[in-house]
């Protein structure tokens, strides 16, 4: 199963980073291709993500559920769409008073009639998307 791991440091205190990453809309703004996040409750949300696959694209509608929330250090989620099942964790660690290390891990499993094709697509994209997510988080928090 494709998996990604990205470790990055944000020049902000841990509470600030936790607050940002607890906000689904703000997290969505950092996720490549995310067009909309509809927050249903503290733990439930609906995500509309347009995934570009070379010259074509596919809009994925996923429901996400926060499975773990231990402020300000750990959050875990699962997300399900007809084509994809994804799980992820965010672990925060205070490096200094104004620096926070974030460890983002995710796994993704394609499913459905295009499973075999999407498996290849996911495998080729997951690390790049994690990298882009990390960069976007840093930029938004540090600017």
């Amino acid at each position, binding site marked *: 199963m494709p998996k990604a791991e990205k470790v990055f440091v944000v020049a902000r205190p841990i509470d600030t980073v936790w607050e940002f990453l607890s906000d689904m809309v703000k997290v969505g703004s950092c996720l490549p291709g995310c067009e909309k996040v509809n927050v249903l409750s503290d733990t439930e949300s609906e995500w509309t993500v347009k995934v570009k696959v070379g*010259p*074509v*694209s596919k809009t994925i509608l996923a429901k996400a559920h926060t499975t773990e929330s231990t402020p300000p250090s750990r959050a875990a989620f699962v997300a399900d769409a007809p084509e994809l099942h994804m799980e992820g964790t965010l672990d925060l660690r205070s490096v200094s008073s104004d620096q926070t290390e974030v460890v983002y891990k995710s796994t993704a499993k394609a499913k459905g009639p295009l499973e075999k*094709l999407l498996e*290849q*697509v996911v495998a080729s994209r997951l690390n790049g998307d994690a990298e882009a997510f990390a960069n976007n988080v840093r930029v938004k928090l540090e600017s």
Partner: protein
Amino acid sequence: MPDYDVIVIGAGHNGLTCAGYLIKAGLRVLVLERRNIVGGGATTEESIPGAPGFKVNTCSVDHFLSEKIPVIQYLELPRFGLQYLKVDPMFFCPFPDGTNFFIYKDIDRTCKEIAKFSPHDAEAYRGFVEYWRNAAYLLDPLRFSPPPSFNLLSGLMEGEEADEFMRVLLLSPEQLLDEWFETEYVKAPIAWIAGQLGTPPSQIGTSVTTSLVEICHRSGVNRPKGGSGMLTQSMAAMVEHYGGTIIKDAEVSRILVEDGAAVGVRLSDGREFHAGKAVISSLDAKRVFTRLVDPKDIDEKLRRRAGNIHISNISFMKVDCALSELPDFERYNAGRDTGIASHIICPSVKYLETAFADAKEGLPPRKPAIWSVCASTVDPSLAPTGMHTLYLFQFAPYELADGRNWEDLREEVADSMIDALAEYAPNVKKSVVARRVCTPVDEENRTGNIKGQAYHIDSTLNQMFGFRPLPELSGYKTPIQGLYLTGAGTHPGGGITCIPGHNTAKVVMEDLGLQQDGDRDE
């Protein structure tokens, strides 16, 4: 109890890839090969009459994708003798008016070459390669998995971008090249590279073949040291090292079916071998269902459909020469790199189209479009010291018009191919010490491929992706339990990529509940 879990029919590079994966999954595998040498379309043999020490790449010479795919490392082929040599510059493109340029692996360097005669086409070339590089994000995953039906694939297509991409895919190479480029100097070589899949520039729905240019820039042109056959030799060594069995001079004449399941094979000499779990054919579906499977063991409708799989009259012809010196492209002042690059002898798209049209009509091309390679420059092991090999390739008709036969024409057509190169490198005629001529009929006799077709069946849109070889067979499985297909006649088609073998192995492993290894490439 059967002696083997799996029997693979055909020891070409796809059959051997499949065997290698299944052996590593713990299965007992037998590979059967009709010739006395493994390799299929990837063999290197000393077969020029009267010229010992000259090694001929009998079919394929350049491997474009295979070094980059996971098969090479997963099957540990370097450990068993495979070493790839890089060829750069990749292509030399000379024209009658003296214009010429090299296609290097580096795009910037190639664009600088093109800019000498067309600044417009130099920038267009960069954009063209970039276009197909972006498309590779879709095409590469498509290659490495059983193809989804077009119906399912349409689920990936949203909006104007997808419509535009579909429009592009439906174009012919000629039409696409006309949209991008101004000069024949750039269009013609790309058309010839694209034409390697055996379809003419005017063939609607085959514009994707031009993406081979992007693949060349991405992966480079790679040749195994010792010739194309070293790929399959190393595969065979790997198979046998891990306990697999390869039997040569073993032509399969029947796939044995009991109660709707493939249970083994019978050879033309009467020997039978039984498989407990699977029989995998790297021969095309047409041969499998019209020759190897008893009609009583297959639905008549499928048998008829398999019989109707299209294999056109366009096959190929090769002349392999032992040379006393390299072809000298003196008048082009292009330097010694002409000895390294493959030579594309094709002055215009119309020239190429005419050559294909002649072949389709049963005529040896009156003006041959030639792929010319002196592989010994990069790999001196292929020829005695100071000498060279020359590989000449053109598309040619399998069946000749007007009742003529290849035995009467073989030398004359071989002469015409050498003459075509000699228009650009005049010294080549006097430098030929000996030669081997392989007509389409020779190739059919050598490999067993119908009409000597290297890609087994036509590579037209109606027989690609989810249609290759037929919609109901495109996932490598067949209606006969335990009978699978692999090889160039399956998705994603021909060329030395090992992908069909890889994909079939994955499907078999999944069906048998075996561990799928994480061998995805970069």
